């Protein structure tokens, strides 16, 4: 009995660390410690479960070998993957781990269902309902996260089936009908596995048409799904640590999803149903053929930058892909030495996820106070001599402000067109991630500097050194 009390106390402590950890994670100064606090709580929860957990009849508890085996295998693979992943590939890594959590919840539901078949509950079977919901949400999160992972890795292309929304809706309806049927008619393995299969397919079709810039929102949403699935598991075992952790992530994840949508000025329904960037509705007008862009040479750029008062760099995913953040920082230092004030303008959704670009720049030792958020910097663009846009596109597209027919209309953007000069570093004239043309490129004050971001920046840095 005392053992069980200790177990409960340990779960209470673990729950507290999750709450405190999450709280600390939401402040820049304490974020790293917060992560460690939550991790320590997790370790505690796992250790006490292994050592103190007792069955109701205190019967033999077995299979320690297999459990430790699983823990070791999972830890080793997890650590290697997390250590090796490039900072640019971070979003899909998070998505992958999220999918694993969803799979875990679904697998638990499957085993518990096997046990449950022997029980003879009459009337409303709450336990079965919790299992079914855990199975449903866990599997949707699993297959959805893997698709999101594949998409961000570039292994899976956006695909919109004909009547995709109709198919999704009918599948959702089918799942609800099957769950109700199972609740009324009693548990049947056939129906149970039917729900599993439909849920897995639903996860795939749910993420498949959502493309481009909206993927972070989807990952965040699936993240909160897995939290809910974990909470259902906690309900099943009356396990408070699982409940707190799961619900906390479920609700916090939902809020985070909404915050991300707000950053892009779009509603969640719009993101989920719009198939934006997937090519379905994204067929915005292409630039009229007679417009031409002006190119600028590297040496001209070097001169322009060196004799400016202040320069603002707008980094985008292209910078990250080219692994050019380090050389970019070098250029910035060089210009600083020449007395040029250099700042970075970070759009809330620069990179692939909100905050992703800050992580990438911090990796290259760019000082925190040089990274300016959109609201701060937008007022300063009128006094900026040169804006250098490196591998960014949609976040500086003026169409978001003045073209109501554009799919990104209404999204807050960095108003770089107010600066005196705009230099766009780009690989070519391809459209941005959202798949739409950018009229900024055709403005008279805009100059294009084509080429790979890293190579161009290296040459540019060398030129600036010469001056």
């Amino acid at each position: 009995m005392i053992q069980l009390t200790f177990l409960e106390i340990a779960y209470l402590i673990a729950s507290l660390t999750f709450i405190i950890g999450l709280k600390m994670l939401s402040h820049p100064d304490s974020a790293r410690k917060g992560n460690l606090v939550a991790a320590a709580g997790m370790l505690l929860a796992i250790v006490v479960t292994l050592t103190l957990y007792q069955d109701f009849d205190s019967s033999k508890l077995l299979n320690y070998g297999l459990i430790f085996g699983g823990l070791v295998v999972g830890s080793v693979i997890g650590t290697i993957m997390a250590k090796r992943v490039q900072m640019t590939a971070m979003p899909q890594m998070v998505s992958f781990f999220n999918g694993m959590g969803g799979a875990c919840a679904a697998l638990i539901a499957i085993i518990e269902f096997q046990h449950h078949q022997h029980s003879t509950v009459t009337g409303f079977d709450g336990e079965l309902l919790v299992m079914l919901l855990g199975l449903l949400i866990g599997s949707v999160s699993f297959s959805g996260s893997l698709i999101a992972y594949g998409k961000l890795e570039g292994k899976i292309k956006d695909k919109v089936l004909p009547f995709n929304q109709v198919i999704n809706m009918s599948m959702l309806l089918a799942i609800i009908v099957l769950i109700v049927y199972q609740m009324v008619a009693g548990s049947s393995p056939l129906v149970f596995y039917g729900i599993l299969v439909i849920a897995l397919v639903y996860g795939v079709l749910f993420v498949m048409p959502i493309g481009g810039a909206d993927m972070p929102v989807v990952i965040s949403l699936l993240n909160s799904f897995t939290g809910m699935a974990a909470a259902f598991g906690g309900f099943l075992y009356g396990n408070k640590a699982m409940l707190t952790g799961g619900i906390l992530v479920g609700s916090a994840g939902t809020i985070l999803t909404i915050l991300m949508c707000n950053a892009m000025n779009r509603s969640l329904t719009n993101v989920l149903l719009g198939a934006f960037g997937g090519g379905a509705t994204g067929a915005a007008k292409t630039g009229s053929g007679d417009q031409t862009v002006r190119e600028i040479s590297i040496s001209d750029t070097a001169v322009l930058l060196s004799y400016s008062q202040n320069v603002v760099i707008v980094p985008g995913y292209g910078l990250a892909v080219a692994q050019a953040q380090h050389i970019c920082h070098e250029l910035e230092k060089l210009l600083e030495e020449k007395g040029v004030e250099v700042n970075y303008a970070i759009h809330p959704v620069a990179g692939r996820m909100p905050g992703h670009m800050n992580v990438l720049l911090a990796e290259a030792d760019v000082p925190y106070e040089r990274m300016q958020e959109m609201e701060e910097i937008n007022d300063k663009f009128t006094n900026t001599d040169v804006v250098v846009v490196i591998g960014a596109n949609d976040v500086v597209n003026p169409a978001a402000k003045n073209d109501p027919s554009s799919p990104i209309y209404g999204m807050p953007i960095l108003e770089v067109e107010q600066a005196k000069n705009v230099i766009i570093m780009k690989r070519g004239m391809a459209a941005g991630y959202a798949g739409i043309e950018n009229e900024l490129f055709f403005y008279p004050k805009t100059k294009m500097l084509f080429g790979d971001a890293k190579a161009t920046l290296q040459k540019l840095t060398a030129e600036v050194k010469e001056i």
Partner: protein
Amino acid sequence: MESILQFIGENMEMVYFLILAILLGVEVISNVPAILHTPLMSGANAIHGVVVVGAIIVMLQASPDNYLALGVGFLAVIVGTLNVIGGFVVTDRMLEMFKKKPKKS
């Protein structure tokens, strides 16, 4: 209908718990600077890895001759651990890069 109410009544403590935890989650998250969205999402991702505790409990209860439960449970422990360890390590790597900043935003 009556049995549904009965189920809720039996689990009233849980229902309280659920509602309070939801509100807590909302409260904890609001007012987060955009730059922390990614690490926060990643950290939250690691925390829901607590589902691995459920997988461990499943394994502890499974009889050694129930091969289906053992196999599926073993897999559940692996993927759950992946979620926990991978999630925390990735988050730590991200946040490590923020440490040198001298002052707050």
